[in-house]
């Protein structure tokens, strides 16, 4: 029971990371109906930007929580801005010219961008894994049993709290701002939105920027949580986050978060109780099972194909 509680905390942390990446997939899919295959690699770039920024600030191993948190917020902002520019550039150069082309064309360019980004980072940053000392250490013991203690680290609290804040802000952005209204309009009917005088290209660009910024925060969290990154992390994290988006229902924002948390829990629990070597198999099989038995996901609407 204690063991389970500990795994639930770990799964929730990991799920928050997946949920933030999944938002980017689900938003882009909802609006222009393509899988942004390079999204996982934008997450990876975000993790590298975070690593470099943390090193520029030169704060590691500090026990001063206030200093640590303020540095991390600054790092998160830098990572969001730079990853946002990456997202914007990718959309502008690789996807926008192909809007209205045949269906597989943007998907193939997306794969091309993904391969390019991975190898660009490998060539510029080196292929070795990059370790980082913990920026904030410390934690709380929640429960101390006879043979097992349940603990939550400051880092985990930070990740969960930051996710909640970002999700709240993001939901407000979608619900209340003109940009959010334009995005919802695009999701319903892109042609009609265009006729109503909304700059659809700009709205789509902003969607990519927001998705990339959230993925960058997820990259920062991944870096802090695991303490080690390399140029290849975007691949499996991307597929898992996509699974999360599908599980929650593609196009549904609460669904993406829910799916993220479920995938995080599935992965952690599978690793804890069955085999950590096959945890990726568990997550990937989940994707196949979900797509077969409920392609509309938990909170999504069934998709109607139109001619």
């Amino acid at each position, binding site marked *: 029971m204690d063991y389970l509680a500990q795994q639930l905390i770990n799964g929730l942390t990991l799920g928050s990371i997946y949920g933030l990446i999944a938002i980017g997939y689900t938003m882009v899919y909802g609006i222009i109906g393509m899988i942004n295959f390079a999204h996982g690699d934008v997450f990876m770039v975000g993790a590298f930007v975070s690593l470099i920024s943390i090193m520029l600030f030169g704060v590691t191993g500090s026990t001063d929580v206030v200093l640590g948190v303020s540095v991390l917020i600054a790092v998160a902002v830098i990572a969001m801005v730079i990853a946002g520019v990456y997202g914007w550039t990718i959309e502008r150069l690789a996807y926008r010219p192909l809007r209205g082309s045949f269906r597989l064309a943007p998907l193939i360019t997306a794969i*091309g961008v993904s391969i390019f980004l*991975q190898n660009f980072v490998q060539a510029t940053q080196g292929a070795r894994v990059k370790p980082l000392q913990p920026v904030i250490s410390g934690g709380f013991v929640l429960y101390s049993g006879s043979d097992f203690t349940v603990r939550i680290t400051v880092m985990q609290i930070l990740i969960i709290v930051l996710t909640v804040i970002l999700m709240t802000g993001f939901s407000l952005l979608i619900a209340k701002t003109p940009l959010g209204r334009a995005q919802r309009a695009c999701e319903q009917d892109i042609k009609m939105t265009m006729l109503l005088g909304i700059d659809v290209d700009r709205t789509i660009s902003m969607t990519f920027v927001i998705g990339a910024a959230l993925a960058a925060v997820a990259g920062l969290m991944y870096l802090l949580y695991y303490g080690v990154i390399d140029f290849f992390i975007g691949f499996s994290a991307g597929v898992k986050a*996509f699974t999360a988006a599908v599980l929650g229902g593609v196009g549904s924002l609460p669904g993406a978060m829910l799916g993220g948390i479920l995938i995080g829990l599935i992965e952690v629990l599978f690793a804890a109780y069955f085999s950590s070597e096959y945890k990726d198999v568990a997550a990937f099989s989940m994707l196949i099972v979900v797509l077969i038995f409920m392609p509309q996901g938990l909170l999504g609407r069934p998709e109607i194909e139109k001619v």
Partner: protein
Amino acid sequence: MTQSDQSHPSPVAGIIKRSLITLAIAIILFVPTLLLKTQAGGGSEPLYLLYRWQFFTIGSGLVLVWRIGYELWSWNKAHQHRTRKADTKPAPVDHNLGRFVGPLFLVAAIVMPFMPFADRYILDIGILIITYVMLGWGLQIVVGLAGLLDLGYVAFYAVGAYSYALLAEHFGFGFWICLPLAGIFAATWGVILGFPVLRLRGDYLAIVTLAFGEIIRVVLLNWRDFTGGSNGLSNIPRPSFFGIPFNNGPDGFAATFGLEYSTLQRLIFLYFLILALAILTFYVSSRLRKLPMGRAWEALREDEIACRSLGMNTIMTKLSAFAIGAMFGGFAGSFFAAKQAFISPESFNFMESATILAIVVLGGMSSQLGVVFSSIVMVGGIEALRQLQFLKSIFGQDFDPSQLRLLLFGLAMVLVMLWRPRGLFSTRTPTVFFREKKSVSASMISQGRG
């Protein structure tokens, strides 16, 4: 006066402004990649940052030059008032090209091993190229003909390789028994995977096949008792010349045919083996195109809803494409295991799938000749990159130029899709038409008329 000013505003200010914006974006993109490098210290030392101003300046400068060049080009284009016909009509593709160049390639491929320059290195490259050509043709059935984006093709390659290795190890089967079995196994896996997922739309299918490829790889990596885990399987028996082994013994190939023994003989045999397999793939796939099945694939690719409305069994059609594509992947995998005599899960990662996909895409989705061209360019390109040792003096000693291979692939995939979305060498038009051909080009597709 003011009117003429408005109709012809000075372009220079706009060009400068847009170029500077591009430069600013490039700087933001390049600071965390080209400028700052996280360098690992020795041993357990923490990372430190390396500043590389020379890369950063070169990279940003190149982007600036590109942008200014682009601006001047489009300004120049806008001020030429003649009508441009070339843009609305696709470049004519010579459909007879394949008729002459194809046999030429075949003859060149057949005589190549007997040329005096054909040493071990050349033959190895030849085998590699033809393997990729075969894989490309196999994947082309799935992606190019049936329009199903399969990102896990390497899984079937792995199934073929491991089924030969394991059958030979546990049952002592020879290559010639294992080859068809490997094809059958791979096709069966294609059906097992395809049956549930082929109801899905194109992009979901892509992700599921990707996930499937990863599942196969992870299982191969971790099922140590059966697959040897990351150590792989070694001592896979080499194929024999219809029962005659390639060794120096009295029963060997050289002794039987009264030739002088040479290790090259085995390599030449393997070369012709993969050539024969590739030709088989070519023959089957080009025959299939002309059968009702192939027509159905093309129709499905062009419009799935129309096919279903006409009562076509789309699941069976997709499944057949998937299974046949997988079968050729299995053949190629079985050959790969026989040639290498050693296989490990590392040979079957996603990048291999991406490489094969890149070959198909760059070559033109349904041009068989295009696959040959792009395989040669790709493998040759890797070899050429390997020769570029002078890059080490720029990028530092631990830089491996062949690392740039995938970087260039990714870039080429994007550029080809932007330039000619339907492939480099082919226009991807259906083989049969009602009344007349529709013209297809990038610019027409962007106008919604493709």
